[in-house]
């Protein structure tokens, strides 16, 4: 049970000008499962290692339950960590691996045995207790690494991409198990992943990072519906949000020759460029003559749904750094054929607008 607070926490690696983590302000609530997500090099693992005490904090502060931990050694922080490569002690049995921290804390041997056995039971690895890590499969090793963390009953769990070494099927199953386990134990957890699906399915809240800077921290639903900027909008969701170049017109946003009406008045002048965000499921076929014209170049028929990839025509441009195709979701068996020229419209209230230069969200709905 603990609250973790980052206050303007900054880490700059030696021989680097740009901070790996730059002025991070973040609070992990008591018992919360908070996921840090972002592309590689965004500073999420550095953030975790700063909390663990494996990286220095160059500026700012990190505290657990109101007490600063930046000057404490890792062993004095009462945290447990699951590493991406598990980092099991190869010369120790599973039981010894799980009991190592208790042994270091001079817990009586009978109590160590009891707690190891209890944790092994939860994780269903009782029959492997006497084995060495090299005699286990990847999934079993992952469980032992989890077991080593929960045996300690720490204040905070730290997990650094613990599922990335598992195959796809096992990853999905373990994802649900870890989330359920965390909810049962109620231990405050900071979880790092680069996989936005993992982040959305596991986290109570998700913190999105980019270039060492926190972009947004909110519930998965809010991140999806109300992204703070164009990066979060594009990063969260699969397939990604369509990002198009538009200009502010009178009473709406102009995309090529199409105008998408906006009911509220926009806080930016007419003629200013904006980035228009439309999720694949926000698009629908428009009657001929209206909407965004696009030529279908590929159809992904997935059974329960279909995704149409289409190249925009008639002067409609995709935003910089975005995909070159518009992706639209269709009900199965209703998708247009490859090569067909279609017209797409935004469903009411589904368009998101971003400042074309800063990328910040412009709060207005169509």
């Amino acid at each position, binding site marked *: 049970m603990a609250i973790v607070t980052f206050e303007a926490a900054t880490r700059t690696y030696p021989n680097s000008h740009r901070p790996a983590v730059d002025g991070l302000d973040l609070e992990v609530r008591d018992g919360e499962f908070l996921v840090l997500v972002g592309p590689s090099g965004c500073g999420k693992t550095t953030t975790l290692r700063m909390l663990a005490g494996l990286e220095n904090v160059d500026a700012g502060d990190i505290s657990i339950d109101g007490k600063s931990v930046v000057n404490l050694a890792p062993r004095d922080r009462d945290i447990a960590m699951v590493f991406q490569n598990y980092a099991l002690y190869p010369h120790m049995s599973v039981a010894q691996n799980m009991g190592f921290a208790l042994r270091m804390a001079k817990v009586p041997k009978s109590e160590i045995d009891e707690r190891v056995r209890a944790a092994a039971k939860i994780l269903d690895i009782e029959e492997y207790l006497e084995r060495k890590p*090299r005699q286990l499969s990847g999934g079993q090793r992952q469980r032992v690494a989890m077991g080593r963390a929960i045996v300690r009953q720490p204040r905070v769990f730290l997990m650094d991409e613990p599922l990335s070494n598992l195959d796809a099927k096992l990853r999905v199953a373990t994802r649900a198990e870890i989330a359920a386990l965390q909810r049962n134990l109620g231990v405050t957890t900071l979880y790092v992943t680069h996989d936005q699906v993992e982040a959305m399915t596991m986290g109570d809240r998700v913190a999105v990072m980019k270039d060492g800077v926190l972009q947004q921290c909110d519930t998965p639903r809010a991140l999806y519906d109300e992204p703070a900027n164009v990066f979060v909008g594009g990063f969260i969701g699969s397939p990604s949000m369509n990002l198009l170049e538009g200009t502010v017109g009178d009473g709406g946003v102009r995309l090529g020759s199409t105008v998408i009406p906006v009911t509220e008045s926009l806080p930016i002048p007419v003629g200013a460029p904006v980035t228009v965000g439309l999720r694949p499921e926000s698009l629908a076929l428009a009657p001929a003559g209206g909407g965004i014209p696009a030529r279908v170049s590929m159809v992904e028929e997935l059974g329960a749904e279909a995704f149409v990839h289409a190249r925009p025509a008639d002067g409609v441009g995709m935003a910089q750094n975005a995909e070159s195709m518009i992706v639209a979701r269709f009900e199965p068996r209703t998708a247009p054929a490859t090569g067909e020229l279609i017209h797409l419209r935004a469903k009411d209230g589904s368009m998101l607008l971003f400042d074309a230069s800063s990328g910040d969200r412009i709060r207005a709905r169509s």
Partner: protein
Amino acid sequence: MALSRRHAMHLVVLAILLVFTAFFFVPIIWLFLAPTKTDGQLLTESPFAFGSLSTLAHTFHRIVTYSGYSVLIWLKNSAIYSFGGTALAVLAAIPAGYALALTHFIGRRVLLAITLVVMIMPATALVLPLFLEINKLGLYGTIWALILPFGFFPFGVYLTYIYFSATIPKDLLAAARIDGAGEWRVFWHIALPLARPIVALVGFFAFVASWNNFFLPFVMTYDSSQYPIQIGLQQLIGSTASFNPANYSAGSSIVVLHRPDLAMAVIIAIAPVLLVFLFAQRSLVTGMLAGATKE
């Protein structure tokens, strides 16, 4: 055609290999056969002729009993110096290599560079200053004069450094630190148990270096009772009639040694190193780390 040509090439390569093998093995074979012969037989018979087992037993007896069992005393001295030196070398080199590879401290890179530089320096270059130092400390003539210098074993430090940098994932140590281990316990409970192959290797090299060292004991010892076997061998050469005829005029009461005796002494001197090698080899088991992390 192509086949026979390849055949011919094979034969040429085989011939070259055989010539070199013979070149290196002939002296060893000669050495092991020499004690089975008398000095006269050694000169007149074929180099590869086997003398007799009784001659071998006789030679062995002569060399072991020579000058009041001196050879056994020298072997014992060598064993004391070498085991002491090896213990000290391992005690110093393993933690030093570990610290250079897996911890952070000010001056780490400089120390690593110095380790490399002194590793290249010949050990004999340090013997004279070491002598002066040992003398000032009042340790001249004690066993410490031959053991303490082996606490400085840069080659062992470097081997250990390479081993720890290459085989132990840093996350393993980070896991132990988070699990509540301090720096000393991280080394003792995690790094050291995984370092058995390198402890054996460094120990073996230190043992061989100490056992075969000549110049250091040559300078540091002054009495035959302190000699290690390598210095003893040199004294035996001085006692061999055919190498040093002037000292052994007819009628002298000193026991005169012959070349087969000397060959026997050499075999006795290298036997312990062979034994230690067989012992250490068993500990050089690799694969200890399989399963530590998922590759």
